[in-house]
């Protein structure tokens, strides 16, 4: 904050700004005079798409110090013209929500509480279980000897809020592994 100056003396400001009743510029505090839009001070703006429904509204994501500081409608989008619904408007809270989980949690069989795991261990454990379940549920042929080459040990549900590229890898990996019970919200 600037050092105190005699010009900041209220009576003088009332005279100098012409705001004689003290209901305008004369009463602006130093903080008020420094107000800026946090969109204006963002380091970068990234174009994105709303993650909720299937309208596909454009979003602008304002980032400062590698943190998302604001998400609002993208006026350039011919689909949404800068507008968002309440869910889309809550996107910044979705991203920065303090309730959001950012740690891997593990519940052992019969346990009553969660424990923590590092990512490496967790993915290793899942890979081991994936292969075991694949093996246990494997079917080479049906009862008429026709080829099945599949596993019934693994199922998956999800994908309607995932990216096309993600769904593509999921379908590709599961199909190659012989897992067929792959489903998503599109049927629900």
């Amino acid at each position, binding site marked *: 904050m600037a050092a105190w100056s005699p010009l900041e003396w209220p009576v003088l400001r009332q005279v100098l700004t012409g705001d004689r009743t003290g209901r305008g510029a004369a009463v602006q505090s130093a903080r008020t005079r420094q107000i800026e839009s946090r969109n204006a001070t963002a380091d970068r703006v990234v174009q994105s*798409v709303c993650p909720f429904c299937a309208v596909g509204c454009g979003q602008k994501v304002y980032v400062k110090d590698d943190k998302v500081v604001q998400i609002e409608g993208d006026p350039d989008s011919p689909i949404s013209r800068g507008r968002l619904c309440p869910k889309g408007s809550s996107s910044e809270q979705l991203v920065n929500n303090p309730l959001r989980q950012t740690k891997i949690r593990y519940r052992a069989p019969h346990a009553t509480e969660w424990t923590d795991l590092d990512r490496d261990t967790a993915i290793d454990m899942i890979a081991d279980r994936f292969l075991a379940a694949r093996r246990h549920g494997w079917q080479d042929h049906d009862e008429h000897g026709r080829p099945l080459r599949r596993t019934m040990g693994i199922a998956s549900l999800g994908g*309607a809020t995932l*990216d096309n590229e993600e769904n593509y890898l999921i379908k590709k990996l599961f199909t190659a592994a012989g897992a067929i019970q792959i489903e998503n919200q599109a049927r629900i």
Partner: protein
Amino acid sequence: MANADCIILMGGNMAEAHPVGFQWVSEALAKGAKMIHVDPRFTRTSAVATKHVSIRAGSDVVFLGGLINHMISNELYFHDYVVAFTNAATLVSEDFRDTEDLGGLFSGFDPETGKYDPSTWAYADPAGGTVTGPSGEEHGASASARAAGHEYGSGGPPLEHASVLRDETLQHPRTVFQVLKRHFSRYTPEMVRDMCGISIDDFEYVARTIAESSGRERTTCFGYATGWTQHTLGAQFIRTAAVLQLLMGNVGRPGSGIMALRGHASIQGSTDIPTLFNLLPGYLPMPSVGRHDSYREYVDSIGSKQQKGYWAYAETYVVNLLKAWWGEAATAENDWAYDYLPRLSGAHGTYQTTADMRDGKVEGYFVLGQNPAVGSANGRQQRLAMAQLKWLVVRDLNMIESATWWKDGPEIESGELRTEDIATEVFFMPAATHVEKAGSFTQTQRMLQWRHQAVQPPGQAQSELDFFHELGVRIRARLAGSTDPRDRPLLDLTWDYPPDAHGNPDPEAVLAEINGYVVDDRAPLSAYTEMKADGTTAGGCWIYTGVYADGRNQAARRVPQGGGGVTQSEWGWVWPADRRILYNRASADRDGKPWSERKAYMSWDDAQGRWVGPDNVDFPVDKHPHARPDPSLGGAEGLAGDDPFVMQADGKGWLYTPKGLVDGPLPAHYEAAESPVRNALYAQQQAPARVLLARSDNMEAPSAGEPGADVYPYVFTTYRLTEHHTAGGMSRWSPYLAELQPEMFCEVSPELAAERGLVNGGWATIVSPRAAIEARVLVTDRIRSLTINGREVQQVGLPYHWGVGSDAVVTGDAANDLLGVMMDPNTQIQESKVASCDVIAGRRPRGADLQRLVASYQQRAGTTPETGTRAVTDPEKEGF
């Protein structure tokens, strides 16, 4: 939609579910269009509608059928369009028998399997007999099990050839037009009044408005959502609207069509590139045992080279997919590694899988950005099934109920499950939000839009792409050196995506593979027409080819407002081939001239010898409107100049579906699986081919006419609110959204409130044969009691966003717990929009008393797993 003169919103609540999409309706209204909302409830859509028409949930086919009958019998349909562009003139097989001839069933029903043999529904063949599919007819039981209806997400079902008999006077009794006319003749305004609860005045208002807003000068557009799909005859709801729209000439023209208003950011994308059991990318079917045992059987069955249009090249799409997945291991000699694909042997949908899970047949389950403990029908069955798993991986942003049911689910509270007894291992893996990863979503109008990454995911959070890529890497490492042939598909898989700066796979590289490329030099393809069936090109999803044309990410195009043109073509990328209106050849008449100045779009330019207009024509660009190629030709060459429906095997819009649907070639009204109303149209009460899951944990209420039906006397319907998103995983954790709709509630009419002593703001318990839940009460005139067949029918409205857990900002009982699993045979989608219940005042019992309450109702109603499972209501009438 903004170009429509009339918008009918039905089976959906657009203002609430898609507020921003609704701006185009607002704009049409501001331009003087009319908007009619037909819905069981008066919603926020109704509040701004030109007119709201209250309809009994599940009776939509009666209403739409009434409109079809009205348009035909008063000759209000768009004659020239119908004759030229639809199959109205095509002759149907002599063996076909309509519901009019039988007691409400079509010919070919097999009471043993409860499914249809559709062979009698086929077109008549000029050479005698019928036009079947390319490899004969598939029985409905098998087609239904693999939800074959889904395969037509980008085009119609295959026919062996496109040579048919036509009578363009529409007089021959076996023309589709005459069949249609006769079939819908019993759908009268009086029937609409008695079955839908819609007054004759209101019906006539809607009919008049549509008729006045259709034809050469005007267009009417329909919008629907899950209010149509989530029924045992959901696909037929949409078919009825499609028949009406084709009759009125409202397809392929500006401001026309039927808009599916889908509910998830990439739900369209997740059927195009499916995480669905029955599909491969680009709507290619997953192979089925017995039907697709060899490569040749497979490709022959999905598209015939003798049929018209672009599905004739289906083999090319298959080769490109296999080549993209298995690279050098896919060769002509090994049929492009076709045998690496696992085979289906029936239905493996999410509900069948849940039943298998409950029976201990499934070890591991991945739940990805989804909350089945709350969002799936019959939630108790879902949770009990998960308790039988060996392991469960939940990937989400928040600690959703599907990850915590073992410690705070409703069954823990009721004592049915004890945490210490549950052996399931649970991994909760935090996911990345949409701004923490780059990738594309496909929105509801088939547009792919790229999201750029804004920041890195926090903590241990990770995108699906990174997680599954890493999982694949580790699985492959563990199998390295294996000689077991079953591991070949994993080891030969192309899994070498270049890493980004953080060591994760570059999503654009995945997009490039989806797009397709020339194998030699990895040059991206720019259109699926460049794909070859000889292994020199590869591409993961043929309908997306072009999204990476010229090596540029076309989905990331962001010219403000999409550029200057009316199609806004420089924003994102629309499949197929960046086409904004499908079947837009139909926007011009038979001679290629616009139907009218006002509705001009694409037209034939004689001087240039090509189709011109603001869009990419959905048609061979240089095909003259009068072209009449040899009927024996297949593919694009086979299309006549007046065959605008390029993805249909005969190039015409189908008023009648000779093939492809498993529950009838025409829509017919049947009551919901559970209904307190008797079907007044036919002796047949319920959809005969509906899919059931008869189990003690999925019991059905008796329907009208059966003993015990009065135990569950009310109809309930489920829906979403603007303020929340599906099962709440992305909204109930947000304080700003949670405070706007903080508690589970039910909406009831003042009459029902009086009948059951319910007080506004108080509590009610809703009981179905599956569960009992509690909800706060909103007594409102927005819910009407309807007079159906002279009897009052009360409807109860239940939003489905809440679930029982302890981590969300707001929690509550889940409406979906009440639902049973009864499904549409075409799509295997469950019926969530109508079911039977009772409502009592006050909160539900706690602990073990809860199950006692549910059981006491079941006993009173006499329900058993067999209740409601009879396929044919009156076998004598059907001639069995």
